[in-house]
Each structure stands twice: as C-alpha cells, then as structure tokens.
C-alpha cells in the first residue's frame, strides 16, 4: 500500500513537467504568441486585443499559474479557430479514438499472445517460422499501405466494409463494428507483430527454466504447463509491451484516423496543427501526456500482480 501511494505520488512531478512544457509550447514557438494566434491577417488592434484577453502581457510565471489554475478546473482554453472551448472540442472527438485504441489493442493481444506462445512451444518448426515471417511483414508495412490495401480489397471490390467514416455505438453494433474493422486491423497488425515476437522470445526463455522441468516432472499437461507455469512468468515483459503499445497508439491513431477519415482526436490534432490552433494543440498534448502517464502507472502496478517478488 505504501508502494502504491509512492508510485501515485511520483506521478505528480511528471505531470508538473508536462504542464510546464505544454505551457511553454506557445511561448517557445518563434515570434509573438499573440501574432501567432492572430494569424497573418490580424491587424495591430486585433493582436493587442488577443494579448489583453489571453493575459499575454503579464509576467510568464503569473501566466503559468493562472493557466494551471484553469486547467485544473477543466478549462483548457478556447479554440482560436472555432471559438469553442478546447475541452468541449476534445470531448466531442474522444469517442472514436477511444474505441479505435481499445479495439486495436484487443485485436493485437487476442491474436499475438496465443501466436507467441505457440511459436515458442513449437520453436524451430515451420509454424514458428511462419509466425516470424508474418510478424516481420506486418512490422515493415506502414499503416497507410495496409489500410489502403485493405480498403481496396474489402471495401472497393468486395464491398464488405465501408471505405471510411465512423458510426457511434448508439447507431447500432453492426454499422459500428463494420466501420471500425478495417482501421483496427490495419492499425493493429504492427502491435500484433511486436507483441507476438515479444511473447515468443520471453516464453522461449521461460520454457528453458528449471521450474518448467519441475512442472513437467509433476505430470502436468502441455496447456497447463504453458498457461499456468510459463505464461505467468512471462507476463511482466508482455504487459510492459502492451502498455508501451497503448502509449504508442495515442500517436498511432493520427495516421489511422487520417487514412479512414475518422473524426477522432488524431484528426483534430492534424487539423489544429494545420490551422495553428495553439490552444487546441496544447489541450491535446496535455490530455495525451496525462493518459500516457496513467497507462505507465497502471502497467507498473500490474507488475506486482504477476510477480510476487516485486514488492509493494
């Protein structure tokens, strides 16, 4: 419990550093923030007005603490482009992104872990080599290549899946899953490959351990040997890889959402960057970084669940 508390408290300085960097994002960009926000067509009065409303003429530390105070209350500022609160814009776009991320990871884990376990058990056989080949192929192909290839085959030709777009779960499960299938598969293959290889190598190492020989000498069946005795020992590296994968997904969805024209956070990020909508960019970076920190924390805490030697 003490460890738990320490781990959670350790998150605070990380978040503080994130906050400083996100805040400085605007000020480190070359030029006057007010000019940047105002854009090319803004007049001198416009810029002065922006400076006044955003408090850009006050000292930097004061601005920072004011900004942090607002952020803590959930106020991430206002979009320069749409005039909408940033928090609201993010909330509107969060649903597709969360679904894509969750299903992508679910897809990757569901296939990769059994594949990795079997490849390790059958190490050196044609099955193992086939899995390795598949992994290398999935690794080397960028999301947009796989994505467009899948769209070409399954949407344009076969017409099984829509070419692009997103349907909320409230529109019915069928349309929802049909719209997500191709984005999830094309985005998930790389994580599946990564995780399958990681699972294979970790399991291979564990299967060579003395306690596996003991387990065999006890007369255990192969599934029990693999799942209860070996997989639990291999869990820590596998969970780490899953955690890293989720973190990588946060940026990975940008490409997926662009390829499939899905109105999620990734699209919002790209659009905001193109519009130089700094408050929105700041908001997204802050939310993403926080999510990243939380995922890392959860991964760390999960270690103890799988390995009793990691003390709390």
């Amino acid at each position, binding site marked *: 419990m003490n460890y738990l508390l320490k781990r959670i408290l350790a998150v605070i300085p990380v978040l503080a550093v994130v906050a400083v960097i996100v805040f400085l994002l605007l000020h480190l960009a070359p030029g006057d923030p007010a000019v940047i926000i105002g854009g090319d067509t803004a007049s001198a009065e416009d810029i002065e007005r922006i400076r006044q409303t955003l408090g850009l003429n006050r000292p930097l530390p004061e601005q920072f603490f004011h900004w942090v105070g607002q952020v803590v209350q959930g106020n991430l500022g206002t979009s320069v482009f749409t005039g909408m609160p940033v928090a609201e814009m993010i909330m509107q776009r969060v649903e597709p992104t969360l679904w894509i991320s969750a299903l992508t990871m679910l897809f990757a884990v569901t296939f990769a872990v059994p594949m990795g376990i079997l490849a390790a058990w059958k190490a050196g056989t044609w099955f193992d080599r086939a899995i390795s080949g598949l992994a290398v192929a999935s690794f080397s192909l960028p999301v947009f290549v796989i994505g467009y290839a899948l769209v070409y085959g399954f949407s344009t030709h076969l017409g099984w899946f829509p070419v692009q777009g997103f349907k909320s779960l409230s529109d019915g499960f069928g349309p929802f899953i049909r719209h997500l299938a191709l984005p999830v598969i094309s985005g998930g293959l790389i994580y599946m490959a990564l995780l399958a290889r990681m699972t294979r190598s970790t399991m291979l190492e564990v299967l060579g351990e003395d306690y596996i020989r003991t*387990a065999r*000498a006890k*007369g255990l069946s192969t599934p029990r040997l693999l799942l209860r005795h070996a997989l639990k020992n291999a869990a820590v590296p596998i969970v780490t890889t899953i955690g890293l994968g989720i973190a990588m997904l946060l940026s990975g969805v940008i490409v997926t959402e662009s390829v499939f024209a899905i109105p999620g956070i990734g699209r919002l990020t790209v659009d905001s960057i193109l519009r130089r909508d700094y408050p929105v960019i700041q908001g997204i970076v802050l939310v993403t970084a926080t999510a990243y920190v939380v995922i890392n924390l959860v991964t760390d805490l999960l270690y103890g669940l799988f*390995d009793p030697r990691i003390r709390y």
Partner: protein
Amino acid sequence: MTTPHPDQSPVAPILAVEDLCIAFVSRDGIVRAVDGVSWQLRPAEMLGIVGESGCGKSVTAMSVLKLLPGPPAMYSSGSIRFRGEELLTASEARMRQLRGNAISMIFQDPMTSLNPVLTIGEQIAEVLILHQNLSKRAAWNRAGEMLDLVGIPDPRQRLRDYPHQFSGGMRQRAMISLALACNPAVLIADEPTTALDVTIQAQIMELLARLRREMGTAIVLITHDLGVVAECCDRVVVMYAGNKVEEADVSALFSRPCHPYTRGLLAAMPGLDVAADAGHRRLAEIPGMLPSLKQAAVGCRFAPRCAAAQERCHGTIPELAPVAREAPDHLAACFRAGEAYRGELA
C-alpha cells in the same frame, strides 16, 4: 529356517533399466551420452549412481521419466521397465500419469526448480489435485501435512509463501514434499544436495533417509559425493563416460573398490585422515579428462587415464563381470578387477 532372509529372497525390481543407450544428435556428430547401462532398483532401496560431471548419470535419471527433449535426445536401444511396464515405448499420456505420481524427481538447484510466481502451497496442491483427484481444500490440507512432514515449521502459514521467501534448504525440503506428495514408489534425486551448504546437505540427506524408512519409497540418488553415498545408499553404480564401470553393495564398494576409476574416486575423496596428516598430503586426483563420446570406443574408455592400464585395455573393451566367484553381486568392467579384489593391484 523356513522364513527366508529378506536379502536372499529374489525381490522383483520396481524399476529396471536394461542396456539403455541414449544419444544426442547434433550437427557435428552423435554423442553417446549413455552407452549400454543396466541397473535395477528394488522396493524401498536406495541406489547411488556416482561419477564425475558429464558421465551420463543425470541423463540416465531424466530418461526414466522421459524428460529429455528429443530431438536432440534419442533413445536408440534398451528398456526401462517400471513394475514390469515398458516406459520407453509408453505414450506421453501414460508418462504424464506416472510423473509426479508413481515416479517423482527432485533436482539439483532448489533455487531455480520451484516456480517463482506460484505459492509453495499451490505448487504442492497442484500434483495432489492432478493425480489424486483431491478437492482444492483437501489438497491444500494435505500440502500442509507434507510441509510438516519435511520439517518446515509453521507449515499452514508457509503454504502461502512464495519460493523467494524460503531459504535454499527450505526450498529443497519443499521440493521433496512436492515430489513425495503422491507417495510415489520411486524417487529420483538428481544431485539433491549439491547446491546446498554442507550443514544443510546433511539435514536433507537425513530427511530423505527418514522418509524412505517411513514411506517405503525407493530412491535413486544421483551424486558425485561419495561421502553421501557411503552414508545413505544400499548399492552403488559407478558410471564413467556413459558406461557402468562398477556396481556393488555400498560396503563392498568402499572396502574393496575394484575398478581403477572407482579407486581413483575414493582416493580423491577428502577424509578426516587427511586432516590428521596435517594437510601435508595433496589430495589424489585422476589425471586427464573425460574422453569425447563422439567416437565409438575401441578399448576401455578409462584406459588413457588409468595407471594400471595394459596393452589389451586399449584394444579390447572389458566386459562387466563379477570380480570374484565369492562376490557374484560385485560387478566391474575391468580386466584387472580380480587382481584389485584380491588386493594384488598396487
């Protein structure tokens, strides 16, 4: 007069290894790790198999439960019979029924032989649930009794511990309780004390001897420690380079070792008399190294290292035979074993 002495009555062996040959196939050749070894284990007996590292004793032990991964391991010939049942041709399913149930095994390194992420109780209860159809609760209770039996204090409490919370000696005790949980007929102990402190070694051997008496388990003790053999075993098989070179009752072997290799092993054993000599005498050693097992033998495998070797030793393989007419159970594979038995060999 009418009741025969138990030693004289022919007791059927519980485990019989006959002319066992195990080879490892690798890219640069075939290694004959075990080459025509035979031995028998009688009920409740403790048989020692001794020899230096690489002589094939562990491979023999692992082969009884067919735990060697094949390929590369190949059982090229021979037979292993447990209560008359041939194991070499037995199915994997049948082997799983026997493993941990009728035949158990404990290993050299207790630090790595227990699963670090499962509690001691889970690991012991697992075999009981698997082989004896016990309920979870009954298996757990029995696991507690087993820990108590092997002398772990506060056993109910310790069941919930993980291996890393146990010391080395306690882990080996836990391994023993795990191996004996289903009351097996045969226990194969592969160097059970090698990785332990000397004081702990004695405790573990005492424990094994006590459990053998109480439970009637026959034990195959694989070791290179002749002191342990002298103290605990009934009979000894000496192995060299994949061959059995000598077999005898423990007292006969230690009083009249007949194979030069056995004599070398005994001479290399530090004893109290050495200490009495105030450490002036250097420990004897056997010169040379184990031969490569890739080539087939043309003569005695030990001849290149043997002080008593003669010309015939290099050209002809000596057969395993009784060392003297009056000692039919004392076997040695040496042309000069008879001389050694009569004390004529220097």
